[in-house]
């Protein structure tokens, strides 16, 4: 491509010199080849200089400056070379060469500036591309690490407390202890299985929540009641490990706010392309639990942001005696 372009320029150069300015074929060819060769070397030099420039800061300015310096050198070299090899005994050509020095320099300068600008811009773009790629990679890694960590945070407290309950049941009610071990194993098994899933059918997530609640109600006895209200289709989906911390939070808020029976409501409805899950628990404004104890809603918020890049999918409301958490899951997310 570059070679072809050079040949065309070369041919035009010869043609103009021979047919319009009436030089001999030999003189015209020599002038053309020399000029093109020298200009080519200069342009190549500029490209190399730009590539070797360590940063992209003020690279365009640097390029233009180098183009000016190199153009001056090129023009002088071209003039001297032509005078030495082409204009030996051609007085006519000698005269013409002297007259065109300024024009030649101008042409060389414009050409070199163009080359330098283009290669500077190219270098800039490549650099930006690389940086962008690097940032994308880093944020993907960070995202995965964070998701993993957030999932890890869900379990230990709950697990240890459950084991403690089983420990108590072993002596008082061995049958119940066995039942509890079964429930706990079911829960853990589905936790492990779900690690690899991106989204799950809502019905599956609810089964998981039920097995979680079965264990919690053994721990807290009659004090805990949970009511489900469902209006959704079978194809509604939800990412794993989002609902459970919210239910856990509702239980904590509810049970830690009073010493009586606590009813938690989970209302699920599909509204267009959005699955709306509303969790309500009673709450005592005077004795709200001290925050910063455990996992809580910040983790859910963070996960939602990482998954959907939206900060408006989790809402909480305090309304007299009730605390409401609304979780929205976009259904047609790619």
């Amino acid at each position, binding site marked *: 491509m570059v070679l072809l372009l050079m040949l065309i320029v070369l041919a035009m150069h010869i043609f103009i010199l021979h047919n319009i300015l009436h030089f001999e074929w030999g003189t015209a060819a020599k002038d053309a080849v020399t000029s093109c060769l020298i200009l080519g070397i200069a342009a190549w030099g500029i490209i190399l200089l730009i590539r070797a420039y360590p940063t992209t800061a003020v690279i365009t300015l640097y390029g233009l400056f180098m183009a000016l310096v190199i153009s001056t050198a090129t023009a002088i070299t071209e003039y001297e070379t032509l005078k030495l090899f082409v204009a030996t005994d051609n007085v006519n050509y000698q005269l013409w060469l002297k007259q065109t020095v300024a024009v030649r320099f101008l042409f060389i300068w414009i050409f070199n500036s163009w080359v330098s600008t283009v290669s500077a811009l190219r270098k800039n773009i490549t650099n930006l591309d690389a940086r962008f790629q690097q940032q994308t990679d880093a944020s993907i890694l960070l995202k995965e690490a964070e998701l993993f960590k957030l999932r890890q945070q869900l379990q*230990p*407290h709950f697990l*240890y*407390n459950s*084991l*403690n*309950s*089983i*420990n*108590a*049941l072993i*002596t*008082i009610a061995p049958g119940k202890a066995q039942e509890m071990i079964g429930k706990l194993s079911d829960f853990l098994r589905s936790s492990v299985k779900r690690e690899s899933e991106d989204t799950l059918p809502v019905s599956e997530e609810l089964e998981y929540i039920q097995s979680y609640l079965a264990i919690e109600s*053994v*721990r*807290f*006895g009659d004090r805990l009641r949970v009511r489900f209200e469902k209006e959704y289709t079978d194809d509604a989906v939800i990412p794993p490990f989002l609902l459970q911390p919210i239910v856990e939070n509702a239980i*904590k808020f509810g*049970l*830690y*706010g*009073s*010493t009586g029976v606590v009813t938690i409501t989970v209302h699920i409805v599909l509204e267009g392309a959005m699955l709306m899950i509303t969790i309500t628990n009673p709450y*005592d404004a*005077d*004795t*709200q*639990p*001290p*925050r*910063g*104890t*455990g996992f809580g809603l910040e983790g859910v918020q963070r996960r939602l942001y990482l998954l959907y890049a939206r900060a408006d999918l989790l809402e909480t409301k305090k309304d007299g005696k009730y605390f409401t958490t609304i979780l929205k899951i976009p259904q047609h997310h790619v």
Partner: protein
Amino acid sequence: MYKVILIDDEPLARQLLKSLLEPYKQVEVVAECGDGFEGFKAIQELNPDLIFLDIQMPRLNGFEMLELLDNPPAVIFTTAFDEYALKAFESHAVDYLLKPIVKDRFEKAMQKWLQQATNKDRPQVSALLENNIYEGYQHRIVVKDNSLIRIIPAQDIYYIEANDDYIKIVTKDGSYLKKSTLSHLEQTLDPQQFVRVHRSYLVPVTQLMRIEPYEKESHIALLHCGAKVTVSKSGMAKLKTLLGW
């Protein structure tokens, strides 16, 4: 006969402790409580020698309950908290038991306590509360108001003033005294919200209305509630970094 009180919100957890205590004939469980309020009342009425205390509980948590006691009994913490967090108060409590509680570990803790019970200079649990034992920052302060327990949300606080061994918490509903120190509160409250502007004052940033120069090197802060507090040179520097002046 030693008197013991069990404080845990899970009935089964209390049941477990009771059955583990059965072989100890010199010990009697005098009360079982499901939250910090009940625990506080029972301790004041029955004056036990030892309590088993869970940390996460309804209404008033274990630490908050301890803070309110003038003369706390010996404590064995029982919790599912991770070990790391518990190491911090190892030296102040008799012991701590991680849930699930197993028999061997329980017996060791009891032995430790029985030894200390005959020894007069046992570690004081109140000293523990001087350290920052909480996970994250607190958003409320618990105080005793006559015989009532009052929970003050952090956003209701106008300012907190040091007063000898006590601190005075000034709120929209009046002021309360509590046996604590400003440095303890400075550590437990969110430093983005509460600034120690002076040796004797801890002020919520949202309360600041105006700051005026006063004497050499010190300032006076005018609060929204109408009060004026002195701001020291270092307090001014803290405000400047926090508010980005």
